[in-house]
């Protein structure tokens, strides 16, 4: 079975801890994205799975077999590199055929397989060209073709789309997803682009400072961020994270002091476990409704900057204490600079984070 399992792997470079106790398991046919800001250890994790780096501690299990000590050659994996790593002295067809030499196929069989993947990835026309003579998008497809031309244990992608322009990136996301869905292999994709992760992955592992912060489906990491970092990292525009004083909690309603206002807001029952303390409240910009009059659960803020985004409008509003709140309202709702908005959060989309930064949720 094509599976990947990573158990508590750690990578140290001298004193520097690049990856710490990362655990992850990928089922056959599942696509998992490692998402995080640059330097978070996601590429190192991928390279440890590939065998290009040796894990300092922990286990790498591919297809049910512990492979810590095995070099990449013996792991039977396919990988797409960030800079594609096309062999510059070989033409496109020869590049794609490279992984097949190991299997000692006949010339006809090799050609057949190369032509097959070339057709899937629309490369038939450029098979005779050199890597220097093809476009960036074609290079990317050649790298993918080289990976899928054989039948490996799993697929690894290192920032596969980072060098493409926005348009190409969009179409390649679709293509890669389609290709992968037909192969039913365990796949790990490293990316720093959340849109890429949200659209391509079955599950997303969000990393920071060498640690995996949360693993979940795209819906889970968006709707139920495990901590402040995930909450702020996923979603555009960024979630509003506001410090608040939790006064009391009763009957599903929390009384807090937020930006100098006493506000009562509906909250998860688990908030009842918190004693009165400083908390962090996270509300996505689309989770507000801007009301015209003040209420018990509204936060007043003055519109300062208005950015039309097409169907919606992004408003940067300032609270009484000077904090910035991002609000997205429908295009039809006309708001001018200077208007005072009474922002009412959607109770189902209000996240409470305790002092340790973790989400407080039942």
């Amino acid at each position, binding site marked *: 079975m094509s599976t990947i399992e990573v158990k508590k792997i750690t990578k140290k470079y001298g004193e520097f801890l690049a990856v710490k106790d990362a655990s992850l398991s990928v089922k056959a046919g599942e696509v998992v994205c490692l998402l995080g800001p640059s330097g978070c250890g996601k590429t190192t994790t991928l390279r440890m799975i590939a065998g290009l780096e040796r894990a300092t501690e922990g286990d790498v299990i591919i297809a049910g077999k512990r492979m810590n000590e095995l*070099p990449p050659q013996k792991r039977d994996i396919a990988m797409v590199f960030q800079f594609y*790593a096309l062999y510059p002295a070989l033409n496109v067809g*020869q590049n794609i055929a*490279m*992984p097949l030499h*190991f299997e000692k196929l006949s010339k006809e069989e090799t050609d057949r397989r190369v032509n097959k993947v070339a057709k899937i990835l629309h490369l038939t026309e450029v098979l005779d060209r050199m890597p220097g003579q093809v476009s960036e998008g074609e290079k990317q497809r050649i790298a993918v073709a080289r990976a899928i031309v054989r039948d490996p244990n799993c697929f690894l992608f290192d920032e596969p789309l980072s060098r493409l322009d926005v348009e190409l990136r969009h179409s390649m996301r679709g293509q890669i997803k389609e290709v992968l869905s037909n192969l039913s292999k365990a796949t790990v994709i490293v990316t720093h682009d959340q849109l890429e992760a949200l659209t391509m992955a079955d599950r997303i592992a969000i990393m920071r400072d060498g640690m995996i912060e949360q693993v979940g489906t795209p819906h889970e990491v968006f709707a139920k961020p495990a901590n402040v970092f995930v909450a702020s990292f996923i979603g555009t525009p960024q979630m509003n994270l506001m410090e608040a004083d939790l006064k009391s909690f009763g009957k599903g309603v929390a009384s807090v002091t937020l930006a100098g206002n006493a506000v009562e807001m509906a909250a998860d029952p688990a908030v009842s476990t918190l004693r009165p303390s400083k908390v962090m409240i996270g509300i996505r910009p689309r989770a507000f409704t801007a009301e015209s009059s003040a209420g018990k659960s509204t936060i007043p803020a003055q519109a300062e900057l208005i950015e039309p985004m097409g169907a919606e409008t992004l408003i940067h509003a300032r609270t009484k204490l000077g904090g910035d709140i991002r609000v997205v309202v429908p295009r039809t709702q006309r708001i001018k600079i200077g208007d005072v908005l009474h922002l009412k959060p959607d109770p189902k989309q209000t996240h409470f984070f305790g002092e340790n930064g973790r989400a407080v949720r039942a």
Partner: protein
Amino acid sequence: MTTTAQFLPAPPLLSPVAHNWKLALLAGLVVSVIAIVLFPARLSVSVVGAMVALVAAAFAVNAYRRRYYGGLLVAPAIAVLFVMNIFPLLWSLGLSFFAYQSNNQSIRFVGLNNYIKVLTNDIAAPANWDALINTGMFVVFTVALQMITGFLLAMLFAKQFPLRKYLLILVLTPMMLSVVASGVFFSYYYDPTFGILSYVMGEITGNQFILMDSKVGAVAGIVFTDAWMWAPFVMLLVLAGLVSVPKYLYEAAAIDRVSKARQFWTITFPYIRGLLMLALLFRTIEAFKLYDLVYILIRGGQDTKTIAYLITEIANEQNKTSEGAALSYVILFMVIVLTNLYLYLANRRNQGA
């Protein structure tokens, strides 16, 4: 790229602006002629030099103001090369058409006679052909040995490992020795009585071992010394090629399960091919000029005279300057043909790849 646009109109002949090179040339010529006529040779040389500098400065300013940067940048190099290389070359080319001996004042035009003599004369030609064949032999053996040794050494140093820097400098040292010292010391190592080679061979075979006693031995001794000195040069070039291969290509090859042999031919070799060719070119040119080791190790004995040795002998010891020059030009012609062949092959390869 800046074009060499000539937007500046030429100044009238007598206008004293800095870029009026015609005026400078005129003044320079007049002053020089006066100096040569009136002053003694040493002084007039300085005056002519100053005038040349003046004209050069005017040319430079003119070129700069006209944005003719290419000429401006290249000119000093061309000037130095012209005075120190091309002019003497042309001079000796001229000499090759004359009968001239440096210990004799007489000089007489003889046309192609020198060339005919060095190539066909009953006495001179066979020696020349022998020397030529010897040179060819040395070129083949020493370049081949250098390339192989240099290549193998480079493969050893291609990885990162502890103390690499310190070991590399040890291997590079032979290249830094003076030929006098290394030549003389190798003649000591090869010495039948005192040398280490003879000692070791004597312990094994029980007989005294005289390397330089036969042509094969002498050639082997010379080739070994030359290759020992210059293999590090080849190594350095190959190594530069090896370290310039991006690491991710090897990583991709590991993932793709490419065999070591295939990795070498499809990934590594394309990166060092150009440098190997370049090392071949430089070392071949140098090997064609092999002279000093033949002189120091064996004084041209055992039929090991190379063409450079012969030319030096003819021109310097026998003072037959023009004959030596003629022979040199035969060699130059051959080297140019060879070099062009190389450049042609290298370029064709590059375009093909």
